[in-house]
């Protein structure tokens, strides 16, 4: 924190407009889900040099800990780091407002014609593919935990309760997460 404070004293504050345009670019570059974080890093770390690689990794690590889309969290945190609350609002507005307006118009236009056979078929193909991408993301992020039987058990339970049990997210999360954390705690205590 002090390091950042000193640096901000030495350098002029990042203009709010720059935060806005940077996260506008991040938003428009990330398509198909998942690509957003790569673009956020490229722009905030490599191109604008606002934060270091380590600070970026730290922000990503924080965002994975909080509910919500990680990429939105990165906009919030980078904005807050550069300019405080007003910086967060500038980064968020850049990330959301214009892409939302364009996306909503394009999307509704597209959905208007979804009854046309060709378009319906295309959307069906995309939905099936995008579902596969989600499954792959889940499997990939679960792989580092594959040597912990408890991790696989809780992942399997969460999967089954949602897919076959059709239970609400709230029930599954609050039913499984405390037990899963307790088991992880016991494992950590034994390992010590």
């Amino acid at each position, binding site marked *: 924190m002090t390091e950042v404070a000193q640096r901000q004293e030495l350098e002029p504050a990042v203009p709010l407009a720059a935060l806005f345009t940077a996260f506008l670019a991040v*938003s*428009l570059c*990330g*398509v*198909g*889900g998942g*690509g957003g974080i790569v673009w956020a890093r490229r722009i905030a770390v490599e191109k604008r040099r606002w934060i270091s690689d380590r600070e970026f990794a730290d922000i990503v690590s924080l965002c994975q*800990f*909080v*509910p*919500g*889309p*990680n*990429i*939105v969290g990165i906009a*919030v*945190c980078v904005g*807050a780091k550069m300019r405080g609350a007003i910086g967060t609002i500038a980064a968020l507005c850049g990330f*959301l407002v214009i*892409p*939302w307006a*364009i996306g*909503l118009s394009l*999307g*509704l236009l597209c959905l208007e014609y979804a009854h046309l056979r060709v378009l319906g*078929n*295309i*959307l*069906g*193909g*995309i*939905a*099936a*593919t*995008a*579902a*596969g*991408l*989600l*499954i*792959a*993301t*889940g*499997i990939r992020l679960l792989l580092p935990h594959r040597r*912990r039987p408890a991790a*696989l058990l*809780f*992942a399997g*339970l*969460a*999967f089954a309760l*949602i*897919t076959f049990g*059709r239970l609400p*997210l709230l029930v599954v999360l609050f039913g*499984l997460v405390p037990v*899963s*954390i*307790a088991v992880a705690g016991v494992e*950590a205590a034994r390992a010590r």
Partner: protein
Amino acid sequence: MTEPSAPIALTAHLALVSSISFGGFPTVLPDVRNFVVGTHGWMTNQEFANLFAVAQSIPGPNMILMMSFVGWKVWGFPGAVASAFATFGPPCTMYFAAYRLWDRFRNAPWQRIVRLGLVPVVMGLVIAGGTVMARAADTGWRAVAVTIAAATITLTTRLSPMWTLLAGAALGGFGLL
């Protein structure tokens, strides 16, 4: 079109699930599908899958866009705006608060344990999100094969998801699914 309390029910539900959306977009999909298609019957499985397909192929904040499409379907433009706020408002508030407190718990030992417990459950939920969407979009065994192929390609190659999505769109467009 629907009962007057529908927009309020939807907005409140979205605000609730977005507040617990660990892992982001995919984990809330089954819950929102149950609410919108099952409980209230505001749209069919097919329509819900279409919203998903459109949101995933447009650049920008897909989760917020998808929920805005749902809001639009229930209550037009005000519904779209309300759904967008309900989807990003609670997480943004939490991100900001967490950022302010992060220095205090960044290196706490319990943080690692909470992560070890949380991540597997969330990843189970992400896989469930994909599976539920595959079933909502299901048009037969060929669609299932496409889902499995897309997952396999993503796991075994470094191909950009954009190309995989384009291939899926082409297969669908040529009427092969």
